[in-house]
């Protein structure tokens, strides 16, 4: 094996890697940099570095209302997804029932399906049921679509779980309810917390489904969307920068917490294996 060729290959790979990272981070860097730009969102070089846009942002009631709406939606969606996603994972791992294969596919479908299809089909449902569009309909949409995340995370956790503990608990006279809360849930703590964080962030960021289910009150992404259509100011850069910083804090928190669950990345990898049919 020729050493110089190997070095050349590695050098080429190193260059490629650096270029991809530059591509991935360029818009984020621009976004943050221009949130301090007094002259607006374009123009090189940036002029008059200022915190004015952050001042404008903090005085902007509509944005903060939408942030509150988004937080409510994300929390409620998280509760729905976990309430149905955790049992769904248990059902997929432990029960046999007619239509199980179809059920598995249906649960996972919203993950890979473009949001527009999920959003529109729910819009038709609410229309037929004469339900008025509101934050509630967005919550139902997010909650339903994100069951998939809870199910994949918890299902992966279940497969690594040693059943002997549950068996012992049942043998020693605990009922199923006690066993579930005292043995199953504590053992699945990490996947459940991981799923919860993931659902929360995905919901905070979601726009394709919300786009069709929105009533009078905006979520943050839809508020931003509305502003983008009216003309753009660095205020949007400022609010995005703040959210990015919060997300980074959440990542660090998650990273510390993690022992084996690898967060969003592994979630995607697990979704892939789940879709390959390992869940059957």
């Amino acid at each position: 094996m020729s050493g110089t060729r190997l070095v050349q290959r590695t050098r080429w790979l190193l260059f490629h890697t650096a270029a991809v990272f530059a591509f991935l981070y360029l818009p984020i860097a621009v976004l943050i940099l221009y949130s301090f730009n007094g002259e607006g969102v374009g123009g090189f070089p940036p002029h008059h570095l200022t915190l004015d846009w952050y001042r404008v942002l903090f005085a902007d009631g509509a944005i903060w209302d939408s942030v509150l709406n988004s937080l409510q939606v994300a929390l409620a969606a998280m509760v729905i997804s976990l309430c149905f996603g955790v049992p769904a994972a248990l059902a997929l791992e432990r029960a046999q029932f007619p239509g199980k294969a179809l059920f598995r596919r249906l649960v996972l479908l919203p993950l890979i399906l473009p949001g527009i299809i999920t959003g529109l089909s729910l819009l038709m449902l609410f229309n037929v049921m004469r339900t008025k569009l509101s934050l509630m309909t967005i919550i139902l949409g997010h909650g339903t679509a994100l069951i998939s995340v809870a199910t994949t995370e918890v299902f992966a956790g279940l497969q690594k779980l040693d059943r002997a503990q549950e068996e012992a608990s049942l043998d020693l006279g605990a009922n199923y309810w006690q066993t579930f809360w005292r043995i199953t849930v504590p053992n699945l703590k990490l996947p459940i917390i991981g799923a919860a964080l993931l659902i929360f962030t995905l919901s905070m960021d979601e726009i394709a489904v919300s786009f069709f289910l929105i009533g009078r009150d905006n979520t943050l992404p839809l508020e931003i969307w509305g502003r983008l259509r009216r003309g753009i100011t660095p205020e949007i850069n400022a609010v995005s920068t703040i959210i990015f910083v919060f997300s980074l804090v959440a990542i660090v928190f998650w990273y510390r917490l993690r022992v084996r669950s690898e967060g969003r990345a592994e979630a995607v990898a697990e979704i892939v294996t789940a879709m390959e049919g390992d869940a059957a």
Partner: protein
Amino acid sequence: MFSRAYKATVTLPPVIWVTVFLLTPYALMFCYSFWSVSATQTIVHSWSFDNYAQLLRVEVYWQTLLRSMWIAARVTIFSLLLGYPLAYFLSFHARNKKDLLYQMVIIPLWVSYLVRAYAWKTILGSDGVLNTLLQYVHLTSHPLEFLLYSPFAVVLTLTHIYTPFAFLPIYAALEHIPRNLVEASHDLGATPGQTFWRVIFPLSIPGVVAGATFAFVLSLGDFLAPLLLGGPSGIMISNVVVSLFGAAYNWPLGAAISFCMLLLVVGLLFFSERLEKKWSFS
């Protein structure tokens, strides 16, 4: 070991929920696609294939669908070209920097999709960052107009967004390759190139298929990036659907297109599942 009651308790609630909020809406979409709209803008619940016939007949729907698939195909190819070597480098050459670099690929996913598309808009616009930079260093004297409001802008932005999605399953597949296979290949006299093409690459194909499916399906259905950056020449099929559900007010026709997209996606998933099974080595 689990009683019938336990199984029923964990099975019934999610099955009922999924039936009401996923299965029923898809079925409803299917029903809608056979209905029509009257002159007074109410939905007529009479069944016919008119909407599907219209899709076949009216050229603009076909062209838009084909253009969307072409945009999605380019996004997929670019995401793989960017994501595969990145995954390979991380898995085989990054040594102790592996975890850090891996996290660095994930971090952009935490910046809102919408916000990243918007950032590209501020970069590519005629008085955007890139054009003013080019003029600042005197490479161009006029703004390059093709950068924004073009299929180019849509492909660039979607590639940016879906490269991490293509990367993740490829990286997972590469990480699962037993390293002793690679060593064995070296020991038996294969060059690094041969080792890559005959051992590593074939074993990573399931990851490539999964990554390609993610990138293709998600970019095919996108409607926000085209609205924001595409201009008239970058319109995609979902934009047509959005307008049919909005200003054009023809839900049944929109439902027909959506249902075709749903079938296309499910078909692709089925196909890629078969491919992954065929190429997986375990």
